């Protein structure tokens, strides 16, 4: 560490720019909105984890004696709905994206600050409606709302939940819209597209998916609600409707949605891996373009969720071929990250541990996707625990590891204070172990044929389920650590100084925490991205 006197907090910054409820609930400062999102999605993550615990608790025993089938069905549905719509989709874009994109491209704020606040209120309003549906009576259709169960046979709060998710969808659309316009029109002079941080590229690609994908699922679940209220016949086979059409429209969004969840984490990894190996990213343009490629090709592959649904064989072959195509950009990214480490100067701080966790686990998640995109093996594997393991390796092993890594990396910039490095290392390893113990056994459960969403299951699957529940306990316990020491650091953490990691990027040229208006003068960018050869410019001591 530098030998100069210990860093101190700047006297004026966005956190003390105003106090009291009004300064927070009516703010249009993208940094404060990011903090509001951080608090609300952490709460939703806690609730989603509670339901996950319920599911794992039930699966300890094969006879389902721990809870009724109805409670179990409502628990896995709530776990799915909360985690997908209220944690994973907003997680990185709404917190780190909101906070960092203006800073990274040298802008004072997002293009539409009021719409940014509106998107948070829409998120909270949608969450309130959905939580009412989940808590007062519950929803038992699964987060996928498959018809005709959701439209004709379900006796739970389908319409209320649909309205909640429909409303929340617009929060995601507005965030995406805000990012696209900001990245296009508000880059600082000199910040050309190919000098932008890859974090911004990843969010640009994510925003395209958010804007173009979310409305399709919005109208689809709206049709489900219309069918339940007015008995329209869209998906009801007795009236000529086609349940498979619902699956097409639903997965048209819901597959690109998994790229909404993983692309921002990839952006975080590109930032972290360069800083902690103090080296330029390997193949910048390839990683940037692969983000866009994932966003576009991601829209062509949705029916690999439907190979056994009774769709046409030839059509399934088209989707299988395209699914293999979408695997290529992810492979390119992984190879490029690994190549970035070559001849670098790797520092194993907590964020870097999360980077290694991300790449290692995302590799398993991505490669198991090859089994599921494959027509032959998917017939056996779809709707089994192999699928559950696959998407948890991508979402928890990938997106959440990336989210935690980014949170730790930019924590000094967001709060101005340092967290305790030792606790960071311990908890990241604990989370790594807990995660693998939870989900690796599920690959075997899947291949042996245990179907998804089963309240009771044959005895021979019990041992693997007990292993998985044990892992879930460790994972749950592991997540408490970052929650506690990060919160602790907000109040008691040592001031971190403007650039504790000596990272490149415009956000590190501001004070920690940054001033309310980000930059006194709009910076002009002269360097290429990740130019770690030249030391980072210290914030000029004048202003």
């Amino acid at each position, binding site marked *: 560490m530098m030998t100069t006197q210990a860093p101190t907090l700047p006297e004026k910054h966005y956190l003390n720019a105003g106090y009291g409820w009004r300064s927070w609930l009516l703010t249009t400062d993208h940094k404060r909105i990011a903090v509001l999102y951080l608090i609300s999605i952490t709460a939703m993550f806690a609730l989603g984890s509670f339901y996950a615990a319920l599911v794992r608790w039930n699966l300890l025993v094969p006879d389902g004696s721990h809870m009724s089938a109805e409670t179990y069905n409502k628990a896995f549905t709530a776990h799915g709905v909360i985690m997908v719509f209220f944690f994973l989709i907003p997680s990185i874009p709404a917190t780190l994206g909101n906070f960092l994109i203006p800073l990274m491209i040298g802008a004072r704020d997002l293009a*539409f600050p009021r719409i940014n606040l509106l998107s948070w209120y829409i998120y909270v309003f949608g969450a309130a409606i959905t939580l009412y549906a989940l808590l007062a009576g519950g929803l038992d259709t699964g987060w996928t709302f498959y018809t005709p169960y959701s439209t004709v046979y379900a006796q739970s709060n389908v319409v209320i939940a649909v309205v909640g998710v429909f409303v929340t969808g617009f929060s995601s659309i507005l965030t995406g819209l805000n990012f696209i316009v900001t990245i296009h029109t508000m880059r600082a002079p000199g910040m050309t597209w190919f000098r932008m941080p890859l974090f911004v590229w990843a969010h640009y690609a994510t925003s395209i998916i958010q804007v173009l994908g979310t409305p399709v699922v919005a109208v689809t679940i709206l049709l489900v609600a219309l069918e339940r209220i007015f008995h*329209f016949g869209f998906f009801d086979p007795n*009236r000529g409707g086609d349940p498979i059409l619902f699956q097409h429209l639903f997965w048209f969004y819901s597959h690109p949605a998994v790229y909404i969840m993983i692309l921002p984490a990839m952006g975080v990894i590109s930032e972290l891996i360069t800083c902690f190996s103090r080296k330029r990213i390997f193949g910048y343009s390839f990683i940037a373009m692969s983000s866009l490629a994932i966003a576009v090709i991601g829209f062509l592959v949705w029916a690999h969720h439907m190979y056994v649904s009774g769709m046409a064989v030839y059509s399934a072959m088209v989707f299988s071929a395209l699914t293999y195509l979408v695997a290529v950009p992810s492979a390119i990214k992984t190879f490029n990250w690994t190549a970035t480490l070559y001849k670098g100067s790797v520092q194993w701080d907590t964020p870097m541990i999360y980077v290694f966790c991300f790449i290692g686990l995302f590799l398993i998640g991505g490669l198991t996707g090859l089994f599921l995109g494959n027509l032959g093996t998917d017939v056996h594997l779809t709707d089994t625990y192999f699928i559950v393991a696959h998407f948890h390796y991508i979402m928890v092993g990938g997106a959440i590891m990336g989210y935690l890594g980014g949170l730790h990396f930019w924590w000094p910039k967001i709060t101005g204070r340092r967290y305790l490095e030792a606790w960071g290392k311990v908890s990241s390893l604990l989370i790594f172990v807990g995660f693998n113990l939870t989900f690796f056994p599920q690959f075997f459960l899947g291949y042996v044929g245990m179907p998804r969403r089963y309240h009771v299951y044959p005895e021979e699957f019990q041992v693997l389920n007990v292993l998985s529940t044990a892992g879930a306990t460790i994972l749950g316990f592991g997540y408490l650590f970052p929650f506690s020491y990060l919160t602790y650091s907000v109040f008691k953490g040592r001031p971190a100084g403007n650039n504790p990691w000596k990272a490149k990027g415009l956000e590190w040229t501001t004070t920690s925490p940054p001033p309310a208006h980000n930059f006194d003068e709009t910076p002009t960018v002269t360097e290429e991205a990740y130019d770690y050869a030249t030391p980072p410019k210290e914030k000029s001591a004048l202003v």
Partner: protein
Amino acid sequence: MSELAAGGGQHPALQHHFRDLEQQKAASSLGMWVFIAQEILFFGGIFMAYIVYRIKYPEAFVAGSHHLSWQVGFFNTLVLIGSSLTMAMAVYSAAIGKSRRVVGFILATVLLGSVFLGVKYFEYAEKIGPCLPGASGVGCLVPGERFDASALGVSGEAAGHTQIFYSLYFGMTGLHALHMIIGIPILLVIARAAWKERYSPEWHTPVEMVGLYWHFVDIVWIFLFPLLYLIGAH
């Protein structure tokens, strides 16, 4: 904050985080177009349902469409195209600084929009009326138990499938009408601001933005009219 203060009499509408008015207008315009892109996909979902079911049940769609009066649809289309014209004239008037005309044209647009919704109301009333409790149920075209396909001149399974056509009819025209119901109050807000001389040739972005939205709603109807009202020879 030094750079801002020296902005030299910058435009009152310029928001603090933009460099200049040009950047702000470019951002607003791109934002609106991206919003319209999202709306295209939103309607795209229900148009997908229309395409699939029209392929599966052609004769039910022909029967259902014949029962719709294309004359009313034709009149409504002209009304909506007219409202698009008045909207474009409103934007034109804002661009040449005639605030009074902006208010006039926007009110004309609102009027034509209301006429359209009024016609829609009567079309719906004619189909929904018989379905209400206590009503005879003859001629009820709302899909559900009381759906009465006798007037459609088609029997058996196809009669059941006309329920799909009317589900799509109410779904698509309902979504479209909802977009107009949301558009009209926004138009009135812009009209009030124009009445207070807020807009000038340099800055009349809100008028342009609501114009883009209104034209998009008109385009949706331009596709809805032939697809719902004019299927097969009338």
